[in-house]
């Protein structure tokens, strides 16, 4: 009985699963942080805006680390809840054409979710400032948060749309090459 459970757990979370979680979540954590950070930087009311590199780099490492951990845990939880591995889930979505159909929906979802990314970036910056004892943005009070949120949503939405569209083309190319 227990060996069956172990086997099903192994099927749900394999080596490739973990590799994918780490690659996907670290990539998106890094991209989300850069876009959120730059959105804050360009939204200073007073120009030129000052920024300290050391705490900025520390915040980037913290954000990427937190996103990798959070993203991996979320993926593991989703796999258990669905009773299906993440890899299998992606294959099913490719087979039924979902990947190609939801490019725009995914981009809009990412743009809305950019608020979470901005909040995580702000949290990482605060922790980095405590670690390095230096302010990332010494004139942080001059940030126009409305503008920063819009810039973050726009840039994240655009990147997600481009990546989603490129992935859909890869699926289409592979389908055509199999037919040929």
């Amino acid at each position: 009985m227990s060996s069956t459970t172990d086997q099903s757990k192994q099927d749900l979370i394999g080596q490739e699963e973990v590799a994918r979680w780490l690659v996907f979540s670290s990539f998106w954590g890094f991209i989300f942080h850069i876009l959120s950070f730059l959105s804050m930087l360009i939204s200073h009311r007073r120009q030129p805006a000052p920024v300290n590199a050391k705490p900025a780099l520390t915040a980037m490492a913290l954000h990427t680390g937190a996103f990798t951990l959070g993203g991996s845990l979320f993926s593991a939880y989703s796999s258990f809840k669905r009773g299906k591995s993440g890899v299998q889930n992606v294959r099913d979505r490719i087979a039924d054409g979902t990947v190609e159909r939801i490019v725009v929906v995914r981009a809009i979802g990412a743009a809305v979710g950019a608020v979470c990314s901005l909040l995580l970036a702000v949290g990482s910056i605060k922790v980095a400032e405590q670690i390095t004892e230096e302010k990332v943005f010494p004139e942080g009070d001059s940030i126009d948060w409305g503008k920063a949120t819009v810039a973050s949503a726009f840039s994240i939405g655009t990147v997600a749309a481009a990546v989603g569209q490129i992935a859909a083309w890869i699926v289409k190319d592979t389908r055509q090459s199999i037919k040929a």
Partner: protein
Amino acid sequence: MKTTPDPQPLIGKQDVARWLTISGFWGFVFYLLAYLSMLLSQRRQPVLVNAKTVLVGMILHIFALITSGSFFSAMTSVLRGTSTTQDARKQAATNLLERTVVLQGVSGAIGSIIPFTFSRRCLQMAAKITGQEAFPAGEGAINWHQAQLLMAFFVGVVGTIVARISAWVADDHVKAREEQK
């Protein structure tokens, strides 16, 4: 009377859409990474930044990369005699994506000198347009060797990851087809 299907054009709508999307995406990502590398390689802290010049530089860089990327793709299509979409499908059939993941990352890191120089030129041009330096401390305050190394590292990592994800997407499709059979 039998009609033969029209041959596929060398440059179709989808080819152009792909050039614009892919070169626009990389133009944006390369500029962000180059700018970030310069920002993190300043000798004096805190670094002062003019947002307007940075944004104008970004638009110039994306536009330059879309133009040159599309021109290069069109030239390649004409020289090879196949459309870039057909070429991508042939590559998908040979499993090339899976085999060249590391190679793409390494060549991205080495080749990053080109978008880095491009980004630097775009920032200089943007400064002439706006009348404000992107970094008011001047170019002398940047440790250029460190900035180029950082850029190579960032592009190498991002290039490897994007190649890895693309290979997984292609592989997933093949496996999904096999499971359907």
